[in-house]
């Protein structure tokens, strides 16, 4: 069953155009000119119930605009969308009872109050019984390891601690679907890992579907089954994360350490040398052109191997290549940096 169905969704904004300087300001005052800008273009996709779907793209790609349309915050210019059977911009309140949202750049927790006060307020907003709210807070406090943070004013929490509380708050009313807009933005590596672990655990335990926007490929690798890559408001790629890796992760990175000193002009056939040290070398090769066993054979012929690591390049690099391939702008309306 589909949790989200989006069909030919389009969102245009009017952007005021002004030439530079005071003259431009006067012209703009009396005769303003507007340019239509497309943030989302003819977007169509589906998401199954309980699925973890990553919505990845660079800044201004249209990720946040799409998620805002799907939560009922924005009205689209045209097209259709159903989220859990509701049309978001027409049945916003009914839908809001069924979904949880986290906007990484816009906190929901009251800044001057301890998080537990916002949790209690959310209990009223989602029309939960007081006993039910308390029970749920205890459960989430354990799941997100925030028990000792709940009574500290939010302004005194670190960003990572606050984000854990934010995501926990969005799950208070047991939503069927979680829409996360950049939940890991600005977090350090450890805090990111905490958030990802908590989201994955909750998704597994409560069968919550997760639509996650991010421009961090690490979120995608850690959490998502499937990925949609969006650029200039359009889908440029969609597939399972495992397929994405298989299709695009054709280059491998090799780091080798030898027992003896290596030559400065160290080079092997079918491999590109990235960095050379006294005893070690970093290389890359394309698995389609050079089989891995041939690489290993050549490396061991070159000297006595002490250590060897073969790894995939970071997913960011792969996605950057896909962005670049789609970099030529589509016709009609220009894209949005919003």
């Amino acid at each position: 069953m589909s949790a989200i169905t989006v069909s030919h969704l389009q969102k245009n904004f009017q952007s005021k155009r002004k030439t530079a300087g005071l003259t431009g300001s006067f012209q703009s005052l009396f005769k303003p000119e507007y340019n239509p800008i497309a943030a989302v273009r003819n977007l169509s996709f589906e998401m199954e119930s309980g699925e973890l779907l990553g919505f990845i793209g660079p800044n201004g790609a249209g990720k946040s605009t799409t998620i805002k349309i799907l939560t009922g915050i924005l009205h689209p210019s045209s097209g259709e969308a159903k989220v859990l059977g509701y049309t978001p911009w027409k049945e916003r309140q009914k839908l809001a009872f069924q979904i949880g949202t986290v906007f990484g750049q816009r906190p929901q927790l009251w800044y001057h109050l301890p998080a537990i006060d916002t949790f209690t307020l959310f209990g009223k907003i989602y029309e939960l019984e007081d006993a039910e709210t308390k029970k749920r807070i205890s459960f989430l406090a354990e799941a997100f390891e925030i028990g000792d943070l709940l009574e500290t004013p939010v302004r005194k929490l670190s960003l990572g601690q606050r984000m854990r509380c934010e995501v926990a708050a969005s799950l208070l009313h047991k939503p069927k679907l979680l829409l996360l807009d950049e939940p890991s933005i600005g977090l350090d590596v450890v805090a990111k890992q905490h958030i990802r672990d908590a989201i994955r655990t909750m998704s597994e335990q409560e069968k919550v579907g997760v639509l996650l926007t991010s421009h961090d490929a690490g979120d995608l690798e850690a959490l998502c089954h499937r990925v949609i890559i969006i650029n200039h408001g359009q889908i440029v790629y969609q597939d399972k994360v495992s397929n994405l890796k298989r299709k695009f992760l054709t280059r491998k990175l090799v780091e080798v350490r030898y027992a003896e000193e290596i030559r400065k002009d160290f080079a092997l056939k079918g491999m590109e040398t990235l960095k050379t040290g006294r005893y070690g070398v970093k290389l890359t090769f394309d698995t389609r052109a050079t089989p891995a066993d041939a690489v290993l054979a050549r490396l061991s012929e070159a000297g006595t191997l002490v250590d060897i690591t073969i790894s995939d390049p970071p997913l960011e690099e792969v996605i950057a290549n896909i962005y670049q391939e789609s970099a030529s702008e589509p016709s009609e309306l220009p894209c949005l940096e919003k």
Partner: protein
Amino acid sequence: MNTLKFLFALWKANLQSVMEYRISFLSQMFGMILNNSIYFLIWVIFFDRFKDVRGWGVTDMYVTFGITASAFGLISLLFGNTFNLGDIIARGRLDYYLSLPKPVLLHAVASRTVASGMGDLVYGFLSFAASGLLTPLSLLRFILAILLSATIFGAFLILIQSLAFWMGSASNLSMIAVNAMLTFAIYPITLFDSSAKIILFTLIPAAFMGALPASFAQNFTWEILFQMLFGSLAFLALAILIFQLGLRRYESGSGIQVEV
């Protein structure tokens, strides 16, 4: 019923939020009482010299000022975000309210308490007590008058601030409109001729905020009660309509927000 529970929970959270800064809360409250008292002293001196202005005396002034101050205080306390709704719209901060399952306008305006409003609210009652008209019945009329005065003031604020959906920013216009509303609400209505009065019942509905409720608090008539009810509810309906129409044009925003 659920909406009422939600509103009480919201007001409780607002109160908790301003009480986090106890000294600031108390100083704002007492500061506002002092500020109003000093301001009103000018009128006391004025009426001591001239006795009345076209039949409008210091007693009328006590009641009018009392109702206006309490209505202003009530809106500040319970619907404090009416004062910066335009800014919320312009900065795309309605996202928060739109992502939660409650009426957006009600949720947004009730999500903030201006602590000094407590001083205005209390001052209004003190002013009414000073008028010498205080009886149990007149107090009930005074309270009803405050509620209707607050309704028209809140509605006027929402209407002006909602223009931000079209104008992008309505902060300056709102400031001018609020000042005009308050100034005309506490001026003796007898000063104005009939064409000016038309403006005070329509474009800047200050008469519905000051003079009319003050007249009702002093002498009950069904006619004035009906006029106040009609004026407040009509303006409230218009304000909600303008906000809802504007909401369709809402464009959100991408600014990083670190405070609710």
